[in-house]
């Protein structure tokens, strides 16, 4: 029984660590490109507002990046400390992918970050712009490699088993595995949306504090428009992602839809309480046949049900239903909210302009500043819990990979991590709002408080 507890605790610990980690890359991946955009606008127009926008957001970037890096290091040790079976079994595939991430992405980011942050007055302008671009490229490369690995864990191919160990046979097939394009696309868009709402939300907060500077008005506009453009694409991409999953992991889609029996005319459930013991849902509210229409483009389309994934011996080979069902609804719900918010915003901007935005709308947008995080986490929970009981679909089960570390030890570290993470998330959100308030008061950011290390703001060097 001891190993059972270790398994459960290790899963919670892994889930907690990756959830914490993903928050920050989600922001840096897209924020890097947004910074490059600000920088290029400044180079082209010489308008100070773009420099100010760059100056403010590069600080958010630096802070976010540091959190991304330290939590990422925790991730790389997790494999060894908690999941030795993972590397022993699929190391021949996972290893090279992780190695390429370190070699092509991490060093690129880390080195040019120094130049991007502190080098503007030491290097020519073009080199600083290049460094900004390379950092953005590096974060995107990180996302690429790690999502290749993650997608391969969902839809493995290009390998063969020898004595229970996975050996790579076709790297092309491994990298371009069937779910990779959808997962990468959907994740990059998620990052774009998270940043769009962060930009709009923090700028809305500053507008509410009567900061009417040209740079805030521009970043607000950029945020709202970016959100309005990306969200329909994201919904479309999400739909395609779901169809791809239906093909490769039907049990996951069955759990997402809360559908127990393979049948036609499956309703799209808006609310239900899935009950795995009774193998049915309580209090269903749904739109008739809509799930069949979405998934099969036909009201009578047959959609696979969860009961198909119980073996004759009664072993359950589908994921836990309720968490998948609910996290999927949270993600889609936030997506719909984003659609509403950004299109309303775009409409208002078009009819009234930034200065006449209703206060209610600004309050709403500042409330949504971190909404991308919620959708992203919910989406990942759908994906990852939806893969259970497998770690690598059809190849390696989660319980086969866990380390034989005593449960109390895992519990101790888990509690410590949770405490550190909770503290850091609060500090992070607090400091960003503090920076916004300070900037809104018109204080040039670090209104020299003898802060030398890592801080300063004045006229951009070029």
């Amino acid at each position, binding site marked *: 029984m001891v190993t059972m507890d270790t398994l459960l605790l290790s899963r919670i610990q892994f889930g907690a660590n990756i959830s914490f980690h993903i928050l920050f890359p989600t922001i840096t991946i897209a924020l890097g490109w947004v910074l490059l955009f600000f920088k290029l606008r400044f180079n082209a127009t010489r308008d100070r507002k773009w420099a100010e926008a760059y100056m403010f957001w590069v600080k958010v970037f630096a802070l976010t990046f540091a959190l991304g890096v330290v939590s990422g290091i925790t991730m790389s040790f997790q494999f060894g*400390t908690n999941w030795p079976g993972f*590397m022993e079994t699929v190391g021949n595939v996972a290893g090279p992918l*992780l190695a390429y991430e370190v070699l092509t992405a991490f060093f690129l980011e880390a080195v040019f970050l120094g130049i991007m942050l502190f*080098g503007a007055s030491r290097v020519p302008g073009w080199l600083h712009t290049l460094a900004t671009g390379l950092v953005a490229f590096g974060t995107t490369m990180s996302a690429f490699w790690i999502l290749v690995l993650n997608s391969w864990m969902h839809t493995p191919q290009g390998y063969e088993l020898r004595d229970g160990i996975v050996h790579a046979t076709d790297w092309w097939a491994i990298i371009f595995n069937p779910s990779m394009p959808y997962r990468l696309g959907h994740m990059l868009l998620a990052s774009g949306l998270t940043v769009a709402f962060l930009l709009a939300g923090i700028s809305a907060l500053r507008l509410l504090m009567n900061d009417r500077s040209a740079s805030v008005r521009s970043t607000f506009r950029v945020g709202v428009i970016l959100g309005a453009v990306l969200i329909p694409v994201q919904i479309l991409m999400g739909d395609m992602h779901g169809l791809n999953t239906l093909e490769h992991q039907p049990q996951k889609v069955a759990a997402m839809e809360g559908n127990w029996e393979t049948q036609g005319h499956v309703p799209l459930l808006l609310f239900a309480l899935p009950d795995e013991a009774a193998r049915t849902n309580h209090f269903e509210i749904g739109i008739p046949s809509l799930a069949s229409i979405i998934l099969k483009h036909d009201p009578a389309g047959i959609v696979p049900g969860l009961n198909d994934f119980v073996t004759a011996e009664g072993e359950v080979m589908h994921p836990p239903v309720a968490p998948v069902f609910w996290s999927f609804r949270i993600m889609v719900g936030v997506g719909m909210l984003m659609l509403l918010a950004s299109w309303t915003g775009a409409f208002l901007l078009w009819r009234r302009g930034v200065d006449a935005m209703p206060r209610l709308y600004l309050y709403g947008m500042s409330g949504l500043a971190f909404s991308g995080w919620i959708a992203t986490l919910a989406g990942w929970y759908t994906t990852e819990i939806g893969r259970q009981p497998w770690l690598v679909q059809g190849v390696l089960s989660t319980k086969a990979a866990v380390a034989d570390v005593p449960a109390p030890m895992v519990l101790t570290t888990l509690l*410590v991590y949770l405490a550190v993470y909770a503290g850091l998330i609060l500090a992070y959100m607090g400091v960003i709002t503090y920076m916004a308030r300070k900037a809104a008061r018109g204080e040039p950011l670090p209104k020299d408080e003898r802060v030398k290390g890592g801080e300063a703001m004045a006229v951009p060097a070029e």
Partner: protein
Amino acid sequence: MFASLDLPFIFAALLGLSILIYVVLDGFDLGVGILFPFATPDDRDTMVASIGPFWDANETWLVLAIGLLLVAFPVAHGAILTQLYLPVAVMLVGLILRGVAFEFRAKAPLKHKRAWDGAFFTGSLMTGLSQGFMLGLYIMGLSYTWWHVGFALITAVFLTVAYSFIGATWLIAKTEGPLQKKAVEWSQGGIWGVVLGMGAISLATPFVSQRIFDKWFGLPQILYLSPLPALSGLLVGLIWWKLRRLPMAGDRFAWVPFAASIALFVLGFAGMAYSFYPFIVPEAITIYEAASAPESLAIILVGTLIVLPTILAYSILSYWIFRGKATPLRYD
């Protein structure tokens, strides 16, 4: 094409190289953090400024090292890290605190700055101590007997002092004025830690196993090995002598202690690598038993050979851009 290559050996060498680079580079970052309590608030800003543009890239060598261990020697990776479960957790929490404190201390409201300074110090200290502890335990063969844990606690302290020493020599090179004078004093104190630490490890290592004992004191070997202690002794003497005279007019020789300490770290590392080869889990698993499939190693090797020189080149570029005495870090 790669069939004739000794891939496990090549990867062991790459792994060793990245651990060594990590220990030197992040060693001085951590050392600067460990010295924090001894410095005034103004000095602290300069100290952080001296490592601000580099620390992230320096830490990435640890990620590369753990990555190489993981990809090239998956079996050893699991065996080592599950044995070191708790110290690894301490180190990770330390690295987290240290890394975020860099940013928070400059961005949080001023009244929180002291607390983040504390986090910076605590994080660096936890990292140094836990790495030293792991080093000691690794030398002792990764088992938890009282005697082994006791030895590991000693190496924990010595490695921490050694980090603070290399950090102080870095500050001699990168700062000026009163802070530089203080850094010289710190180095004078720290060199004891290095000498005692290297001494303790050298005394203990040969007694870990008969195999290592023979490797050290067998007849021709002892002759090949003798340059290691001799050179180390010379370097310690050189540092000692220079430290008594620094800082000198025109800032001459300010780089010597730092350069000499790097050489010292390299020698110490070489001695250890010699003793443990070909084992990756001491006295239990050799690099040949632990290595991944050759096809997978080959594909990483190709990338490594192309990318590693590039990484080195742009790292050097970065050190060159931020050469000279540390100036306040500015985002403009």
